[in-house]
């Protein structure tokens, strides 16, 4: 194979060659033989390391899967120089005293020396020292930091020898026989050291301390990779801590501990719903009169602000001190409130105030005495066409107004629950998307009244035409007393043959799933609805 200076072509080429070879290997013996053969491959050229590092790394020597690198010098820590000096001084000490002993003619020490026949002893001492220094060297080598990187066709084990030298060993997945965790009590340490043991087909065992492994891989990513690329090797691999499991649970990681401890029950003044008589302070002082609770969206209260009656919509906020959670949600509430405050239309419920009190957000809304269209139908059943058309025209007026803003304001939650019919016969639109905006968490999203949501809104791209779909569904509901079928064109005539063709066509067009067929503007639908039905 020719060498190339680029990293990735080499990577792919080598791993492809390895993979091709592997195709034919079937048994362990076969794999072992192939591993052995791959070891016999040597070369000495310029290449890049699999590990990206500062400066460039020159390949010094390749022996099969083993590569020795020399990298750009990093600044030596002072301490290692001191250690070298220490070594030198100790050597001097040893020399000095050896000299002293040898040259000393003193009888006392001679006697002592005779006692231990130092003549034969000294070389033994020196030999022992050298042997132990060698063992220390091996200990040092095994303590060298290691790193392990996983690729689709192999693992690469890197050992840092010293500041200038490191080695990389390629272990193709095909030659891996077993990967597992081992625990060992090190001399002098009080804890067990966990290491990853990688055994190859030839019987070679590599050990990588878990901390070194975790520099480049998370536990989950590591075990996931092994199970994917070498599933036969992962039978004994698991990060479950059997026996130690209880301990681990008790000493939960600090971040999880935070979650448990951050909430403070003593902080909230009220833990249930508000009751009559409670007062809240916003721009004005509000006194709760009672719970309205309608709509299934959340807590709503009737309150008095001076002489007027208002509605308070309540959103209970998380506390989590020391974080921005409460602040962010309060900001979102303010944003929504300000957006709604811009709307000035007789048929849109007015927002007069917003505030946060006792970790609960409140929107102060105009009080509309009456019932929602849903309640109306619940009480009186399906409504006559003339009424429905009237409602349609009035709502289209509102939608036209809202869509006329730059950029257009899309309601996104138009449904029979959200349209009020006042006791004086007025139509009022309430309940914009505020709750959805604030609910964020809980892992699942409340999609909303899915019967009234068109596909493009569900896909996250609501347009003004989405409100027209919802309107069509609402009119269907009024005419038939039933919720429309989600994600389909609604034909009220199918339920009630008495309904006029014209109205049926309009509603069908409004609830068409295809945006090119559906009305794109409120004015279009308004025109259709107001004509031909006199």
């Amino acid at each position, binding site marked *: 194979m020719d060498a190339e200076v680029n990293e990735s072509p080499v990577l792919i080429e080598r791993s492809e060659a390895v*993979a091709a070879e*592997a195709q034919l290997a079937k048994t362990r013996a076969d794999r072992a033989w192939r591993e052995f053969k791959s070891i016999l491959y040597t070369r000495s050229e310029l290449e890049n390391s699999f590990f990206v590092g*500062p400066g460039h790394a020159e390949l010094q020597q390749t022996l099969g899967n083993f590569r020795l690198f020399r990298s750009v010098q990093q600044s030596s*820590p002072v301490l*290692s120089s001191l*250690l070298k000096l220490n*070594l030198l001084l100790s050597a001097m000490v040893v020399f000095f005293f050896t000299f*002293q002993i040898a040259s000393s003619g003193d009888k*006392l020490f001679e006697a*002592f020396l005779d006692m231990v026949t130092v003549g034969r002893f000294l070389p033994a001492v020196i030999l022992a020292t050298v042997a*132990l220094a060698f063992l*220390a060297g091996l200990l*040092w080598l095994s303590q060298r930091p290691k*790193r392990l990187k996983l690729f689709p066709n192999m693992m690469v084990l890197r050992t840092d020898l010293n500041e200038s030298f490191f080695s990389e060993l390629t272990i193709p997945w095909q030659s891996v026989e077993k990967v597992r965790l081992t625990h060992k009590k090190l001399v002098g340490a009080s804890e067990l050291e966990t290491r990853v043991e990688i055994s190859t087909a030839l019987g070679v065992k590599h050990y990588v301390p878990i*901390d070194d492994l975790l*520099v480049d891989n*998370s536990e*989950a990513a590591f*075990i*996931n990779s092994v*199970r994917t*690329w070498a599933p036969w090797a*992962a*039978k004994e691999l698991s990060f479950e801590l059997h026996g130690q499991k209880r301990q681990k649970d008790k000493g939960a*990681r600090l971040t*999880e501990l935070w*979650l*448990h*401890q951050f909430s*403070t029950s003593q*902080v909230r003044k009220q833990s249930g719903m508000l009751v009559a008589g409670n007062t809240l302070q916003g721009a004005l002082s509000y006194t709760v009169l009672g719970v309205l*609770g309608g*709509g*299934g*969206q*959340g807590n709503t209260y009737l309150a008095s602000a001076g002489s007027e009656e208002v509605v308070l919509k*309540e*959103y*209970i*906020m*998380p506390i989590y*001190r*020391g974080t*921005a*959670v409460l602040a962010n949600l309060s900001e979102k509430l303010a944003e929504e409130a300000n957006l709604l405050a811009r709307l000035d239309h007789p048929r849109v419920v007015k927002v007069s105030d917003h505030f946060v009190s006792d970790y609960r957000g409140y929107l102060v809304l105009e009080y509309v005495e009456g019932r929602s269209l849903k309640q109306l139908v619940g009480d009186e059943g399906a409504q006559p066409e003339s009424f429905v058309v009237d409602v349609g025209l009035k709502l289209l007026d509102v939608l036209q107004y809202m869509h006329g803003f730059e950029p257009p304001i899309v309601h996104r939650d138009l449904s029979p629950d959200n349209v009020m019919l006042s006791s004086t016969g007025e139509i009022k639109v309430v309940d914009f998307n505020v*709750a959805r905006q604030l*609910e*964020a*968490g*809980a*892992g*699942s*999203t*409340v*999609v909303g*009244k*899915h*019967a009234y949501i068109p596909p493009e809104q569900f*896909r996250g791209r609501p347009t003004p035409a989405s409100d027209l779909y919802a309107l069509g569904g609402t009119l269907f509901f009024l005419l038939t007393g039933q919720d429309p079928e989600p994600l*389909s064109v609604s034909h009220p005539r199918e339920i009630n043959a008495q309904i006029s063709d014209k109205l049926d066509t309009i509603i069908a067009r409004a609830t068409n799933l295809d945006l090119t067929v559906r009305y794109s503007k409120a004015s279009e639908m308004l025109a259709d609805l107001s004509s031909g039905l006199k």
Partner: protein
Amino acid sequence: MQDHKANLTQVSQSLSLVGGRKLSYRARTSTLALAFIMALSPVWLLWSTGAALSLIWSIFNSLSHGHGVPEFYDLMAAFYVFLISVGIFAVYVCSDSKLVFDGETIRLPSRFLFELRGRLRRPWESLRIVDFRDRDGSHSRPQHMALVFDGGASVPLGIAGMKRDDVKELIQAIQLLAPQAEFYPALVELELELVSGFDAGLSATLHPSFTQLWEDELAGRFGSTIFVPLEPGAVLQEESVKVLGQLCFGGLSAVYLAEQKDGTQVILKEAVLPLGCDQSLKEKALAMFAREAAILATLKHERVAAVLDYFVDNGRHYIVLEHIEGIDLRRFVREQEAQPAEVVLRWLSEMNDILMYLHAHEPPVVHRDVTPDNIVLARDGHLSLIDFGAANNLVGTATGTLVGKQSYISPEQFRGKAGPQSDLYSLGATMSFALTAADPEPLTKLSPEIPDDISDDSLLIYTGLVEIIRDLTEQELESRIKTSAELKGRIEALKAPLPVAAASMRSDQ
């Protein structure tokens, strides 16, 4: 300030339960020193014997002969003893020592005895500065984290030798317990620089903008609710379940980590039905929920979180689930990015086996909420299903809304007619997420893009997998893959050409 103190008391109380946090502090250089000293131990041993013997001899000699003790041997003996003491002290200083902290104080390793002027234990309030900068002011590859306390004591912790998780914990603890401490450079700057660095010590430890990630995570977990969520310590059901902490909440539901009487940790799911619910709808929803929960409680599969209990307490509905430790696929893919086809194929196979088990019941158990958030990679590397759509269904039916993650809901489920094939759709969407690291387009037949830079072997698997995902996310039921068995056949067919892996998988498994 009052509340901050209250927080700290709670934290230290809980920390004291686990005996404070002990971090292992061992600078790499001290290991070397230890090795060096150990290697020379026979020399020390020999000379110490010689020193002791000659000292005794000379004392004996001078006592018995009445001479003054020869000066030379005095010096030599004294020097040997001194060397030995230095050796012992060096071993003590260099040996593995611990960095311990709890809610009130931090105790630093003994090697900093000098810097701390003897007072190794310092209260958190006295920590002023945390400095990552080198002598020349740069902080691109910090080797040290200097903690500066009141009174000027400065401790340069060598972070290169510490475990990465420990460094992260220490920084988090400082942020929580010593909010007055200033970071130089600001933590956000520090992390950004480090991620591009290479130093084994710290770069892999801190995620980019840790503080921002933490805030984002909190914002994603906790939203406004219509009820006040349970606090840690709350007990339910005649003290058989105790809340340990809040995991997430929003709208009408919440999820907690809880503990049963026997100490096992469980997941507690809470659903609160709003007051204004239509009564008939509410009753229908509750009846359905009770039936479903009863069926779920009978399921027994090692890869499915068992439903341990379900009850009503104080008007709120609860399900108690087995707690399976692991990382959910959403977080995994967020951290590890788009997964290769081989990984996704394996995940698909494992999840399909689970769904096959669920659907094999009479009547088939439809999960209804197969999403990356509900699948975890357990500690043994296999996938597990940790949640059910039952609670969502309760809330949804009672309020007339749909609860779930848009991208994973099939058209028929949207229309309220979920069946086993809906789970297959959601599985297909989930695998598309794994392949692309992005939530797929809702209600669409999915065709995830194949990356350019893959080998030819992988290309085969990719195209096969994308085909399967397309067939799983067909909008019409007739065109979609009908059963888990059919899907299994497709998966097996795709696995066949894999080199060796397949052959040995069949023979060794």
